[in-house]
């Protein structure tokens, strides 16, 4: 397959530096300081100086006004243009895609995408579900776990998928996270022990829900290959879409959105799902990983549950899925999540992931969903695979 003509209209863009703070339930430092820490790490990784950065796009959830300049003010006040973006869980992914577009179209030669802020802050004002009198609250549709408990039940019914399949996702991702020093949950838990986790929205257990925490991540993008001597990681696609009408729109996310965005991303990159070596998906709830792997074409419909048991998605398997630990293991602050996926994939493609290094690394995909109906996908390709 050859690259889509739209890809040819853009100049090549490389990820030249990555950095992130540990993800944790809470941090004492405010988001702007965490973001600056992540930017400094990305600059050091890229071996470039802060004044060389021509654009800052900050993905911020739950932040104050003028969130982007406040991050810049934690560094030298170079006058660099900076603005904030937000799109729920996919906030960091928006920052990345916008920075990519700016560099790809020549608006800037280099840009930093940074993410910070916790969804815990943003979700704090949701109100008491026992007293709310709107449709979403009366029907339970405002509670994200119910959506994915419904999905899990439906897959168990339609495919005969076992309850343990979703638990195997959790066990895999916690195992990966236990090898990631920046992850929020660092204890591996086998499926047998996960069965004892209390039900949150039956059949979805508490352990199947990602932790919402805090932390920051930053990615340096440039029109020039990296100077640090490492392999060049090129952005082959960075796309998004919002949802379309479907019959269950009042209570469920658009079931076709990941497939549509993936199709566009594969076309732009000139690849198919079979070319993927590494994938980070939006596994906020265990069963999401199974569904999205099928929507992405990594697994045939109804077979992701069997394949996770068979080790297809393990580090060292057919395609490593959520090698960072995913949202379930590494954590899901909100602002930084999508960028943390990029940090992991770049680290893997460089062959620098240490004890969680996947065996092959040429093509990687990141996938995030933003509540309210958006999907973001990036495809990264290593131009010089690690030896």
């Amino acid at each position: 397959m050859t690259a889509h003509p739209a890809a040819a209209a853009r100049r090549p863009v490389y990820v030249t530096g990555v950095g992130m703070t540990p993800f944790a339930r809470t941090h004492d430092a405010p988001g702007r300081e965490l973001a600056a820490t992540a930017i400094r790490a990305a600059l050091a990784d890229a071996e470039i100086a802060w004044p060389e950065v021509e654009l800052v796009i900050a993905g911020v959830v739950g932040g104050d006004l003028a969130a982007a300049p406040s991050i810049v003010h934690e560094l030298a006040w170079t006058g660099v243009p900076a603005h904030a973006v937000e799109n729920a869980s996919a906030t960091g992914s928006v920052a990345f895609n916008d920075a990519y577009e700016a560099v790809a179209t020549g608006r800037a030669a280099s840009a930093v995408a940074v993410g910070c802020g916790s969804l815990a802050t943003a979700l704090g004002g949701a109100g008491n579900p026992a007293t709310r009198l709107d449709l979403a609250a009366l029907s339970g549709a405002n509670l994200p776990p119910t959506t994915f408990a419904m999905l899990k039940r439906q897959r168990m019914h339609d495919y005969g998928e076992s309850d343990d399949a979703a638990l195997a996702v959790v066990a895999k991702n916690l195992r990966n996270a236990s090898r990631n020093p920046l992850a929020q949950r660092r204890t591996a838990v086998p499926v047998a022990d996960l069965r004892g986790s209390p039900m949150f929205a039956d059949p979805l257990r508490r352990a199947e829900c990602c932790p919402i925490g805090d932390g920051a991540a930053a990615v340096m993008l440039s029109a020039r290959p990296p100077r640090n001597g490492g392999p060049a990681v090129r952005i082959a696609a960075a796309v998004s879409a919002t949802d379309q009408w479907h019959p269950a729109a009042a209570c469920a996310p658009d079931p076709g959105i990941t497939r549509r965005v993936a199709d566009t991303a594969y076309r732009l990159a000139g690849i198919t799902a079979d070319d993927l070596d590494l994938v980070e998906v939006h596994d906020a709830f265990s069963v999401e990983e199974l569904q999205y792997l099928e929507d992405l074409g990594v697994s045939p419909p109804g077979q992701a549950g069997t394949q996770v048991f068979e080790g297809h998605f393990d580090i060292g398997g057919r395609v490593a899925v959520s090698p960072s630990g995913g949202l379930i293991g590494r954590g899901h602050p909100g602002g930084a999540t999508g960028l943390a996926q990029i940090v992991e994939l770049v680290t893997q493609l460089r062959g620098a992931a240490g004890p969680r290094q996947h065996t092959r690394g040429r093509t990687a995909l990141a996938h995030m969903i933003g509540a309210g109906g958006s999907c973001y996908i990036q495809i990264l390709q290593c131009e010089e695979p690690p030896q």
Partner: protein
Amino acid sequence: MNPSFDPAILVTDEHGATLISGSCPDCGAVTFPQRQHCARCGSPTREHPLPTNGVVRSYCRIAIPLAGAEAPVTLVRVELSPQCTVQGVMDGVVDIGDRVALVPRRIDGAESYTGFGFARSTS
């Protein structure tokens, strides 16, 4: 019966309760709740009462109360027509494929309202 929690969404009378959607005269898509313009093609919609019986497509059980429902609460996702699936509180046990009927539900608080839920269909 107490007043509807939202008369634009739920109409109640002596016969029971009906959910109100918007139907598109151009493309046939149904949006629930009704929007002025079709979510699929953008044409103006017409008020369209939804069927009051449907088939359970999925369900779950949550450990927290909702307005008018003590925990644990069973929630069902019900296909009322090929064009519209809705979600609500279920009275009693249920399984995927069961036929259920829309029922009014009493919501007591500082003021009392009528909401909706589902119960096994007798028809």
